[in-house]
């Protein structure tokens, strides 16, 4: 559903996805699904202290992340974008390290991976995307060449003042930003209808003169195509786009959450809709894009990958305490260096 104002029809890469690409999308989704469920298991096994599963959001995350051009775009995630990270080819041990409690924000290099540090403040990085995008405008890239910022946030986050300020700034400045909302029905225990007045985040866009797309967030191809047109719109200098991917948080909010306190299994079953992975599999089968052997292989690869990530996570020791001090500033202060010295001396003598 497209509401007015409308996107400029500037998609210069309008070719439909090749079979190869469709299979790649599936492989990514399968990897994400398996890594995600495994991370929940890791938490139960005491390997990591906590995790925020993205179960059910694979299509929304992989479909959008797949549209990113890593040579020039930049993604601003929340704490639940493991699928985007994977689709963008992040070092997944570095990504998972934040859930291991190794380092807030993760151990991957955000500049190289074009994926900002994991963000625990709800709506915290939406404005960063606007600033980064405006930076692209200031750089004065050739028309159609500019980098695009994509910021991910949830239905709950949409209530934060920062989101409004970001949309208004982006629209006033015509900044190349894609606001990608995963409306997964819940903000912890609060359902969308008690959160998002009017019922849709995409509907807000019109008030800023921003074109918006509301897509089936469980349809990976639809998500990819929406994201691709949004990027094309932004890249051509037409300003921001809002995408609202309608999906469902099938798991708990986090491994510390107990959804049974606020929704029944029956409600979950009714509201969740189709499983995006299963749905895509059926589609690929029907369309003759892939066969069972392919799916089995995808699953095998996913398991192999999970083992490697688990091993990597297990190998991660705690960071040296000295990093607490050395990573605060680019230009260290004597006062902080003195604290580091005292810390070291006391640790050694304890």
């Amino acid at each position: 559903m497209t509401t007015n104002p409308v996107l400029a029809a500037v998609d210069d890469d309008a070719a439909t996805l090749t079979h190869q690409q469709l299979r790649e999308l599936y492989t990514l989704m399968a990897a994400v699904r398996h890594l995600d469920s495994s991370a929940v298991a890791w938490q139960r096994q005491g390997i990591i202290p906590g995790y925020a599963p993205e179960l059910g959001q694979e299509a929304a995350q992989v479909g959008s992340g797949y549209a990113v051009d890593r040579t020039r775009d930049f993604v601003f995630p929340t704490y639940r974008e493991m699928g985007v990270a994977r689709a963008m080819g992040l070092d997944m041990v570095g990504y998972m390290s934040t859930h291991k409690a190794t380092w807030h924000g993760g151990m991957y290099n955000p500049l190289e991976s074009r994926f900002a540090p994991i963000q625990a403040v709800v709506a915290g990085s939406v404005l960063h995307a606007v600033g980064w995008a405006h930076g692209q405008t200031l750089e004065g890239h050739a028309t159609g060449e500019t980098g695009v910022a994509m910021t991910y946030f949830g239905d709950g986050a949409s209530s934060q003042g920062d989101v409004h300020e970001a949309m208004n700034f982006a629209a006033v400045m015509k900044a190349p930003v894609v606001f990608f909302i995963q409306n997964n029905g819940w903000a912890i225990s609060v359902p969308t209808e008690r959160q998002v007045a009017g019922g849709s985040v995409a509907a807000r866009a019109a008030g800023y003169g921003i074109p918006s797309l509301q897509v089936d967030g469980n349809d990976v191809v639809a998500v990819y195509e929406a994201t691709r047109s949004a990027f094309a719109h932004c890249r051509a200098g037409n300003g921001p786009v809002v995408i609202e991917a309608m999906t469902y948080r099938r798991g708990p909010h986090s491994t510390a959450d107990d959804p049974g306190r606020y929704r029944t299994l029956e409600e979950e079953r009714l509201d969740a809709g189709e499983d995006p992975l299963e749905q895509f599999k059926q589609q690929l089968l029907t369309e003759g894009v892939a066969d069972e052997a392919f799916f089995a292989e995808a699953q095998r690869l996913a398991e192999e990958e999970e083992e490697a990530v688990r091993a990597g996570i297990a190998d991660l020791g705690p960071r040296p305490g000295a990093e607490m001090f050395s990573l605060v500033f680019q230009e260290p202060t004597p006062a902080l260096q003195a604290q580091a010295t005292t810390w070291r001396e006391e640790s050694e003598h304890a």
Partner: protein
Amino acid sequence: MPETITDLRITANSMDTPAAGVEQLSMQQALNRALDEILAENPKTVIFGEDCGRLGGVFRITDGLQAKHGEARVFDTPLAESGILGMSVGLAMAGFHPIPEVQFDGFAYPAINQIVCQIARMNYRSRGTLPMPITLRVPSFGGIRAPEHHGESLEALFAHVPGLKVVSPSNPHDAYHLLKYAATRLDPVIFMEPKSRYWQKGPVDVTTAVPGEATHDGDTSSGGSLTGSRVAREGRHLTLVAWGAMVSRCLQVAELAAEDGIDVEVLDLRWLKPIDAEALAKSVGKTRRAVVVHEAPLTSGLGAEVAQLITQSCFATLKAPVERVTGFDVPYPSGDLEDEYIPNIDRILFGIQRVLEYRRG
């Protein structure tokens, strides 16, 4: 490496013979019970925040309250802290006693504008015609290996703001009584709950705020000495000043120091604004040495204020400058480094040692 906070089993307010009306409750239970009674006693009280209603809060502090008192009295808001606090102002203006919650300390920052510029000033601005009887509950401090922004200590910020009162309980008994006290006040109170202590049980005497064994000589009427600090352990050689989760750690340090013949007094400050300057003077007047302990970063932390208040009143008899053992001037680190950041037993012992070994000139 010293134990993590959750390993500590000492209850700050231990009583040998449980009297009638004394129950063993966790701080979570004590707070939940206090809120239940507050709602029952004052029909103008309302509780709200993110996930406070059906879920009962991520820490279950409001568990069951919506079911019992109805959706009008206990409700979920959209996810916006400035909205929650700004709405509290309007409710207070309409005669309500709001008891909002921010889900974690770090998420008080989006609401700071409403807290500092509105809640703290409305009584003043309106020349006393629009009081702000708001009790803002903030699950606070670190120690639970949580994600970023879930282990912050904002007391120095809050204590600096004219128009706010700030309190932090260290044990279930105080949690119960201080919350009931705060929620009946006519001024805004920031209520900082040490989240790492939510699950530790301790005796709660619901019949009186000042149980028989309390060492404090305040009166025992409801609220009486609740306005001040509490001597959690008496001692002669040195005073450890702490609040929140650091109180139980200091009590453990005191036990260890006692093995070396050092008799440490532990003062549980409780009120971080106004600070019980008299109790500081009395305790350090006796011990002549003091160490302040807090989780927040050192620079411009509340420890500086406490130290200066002590120095001001005890300068002539003080044997050494007051020491501060605090978090470092670094962002609160991830779980793996938490124990390096939060003052641990060794660091507090080193602080005590520095004070004891101090020699002039």
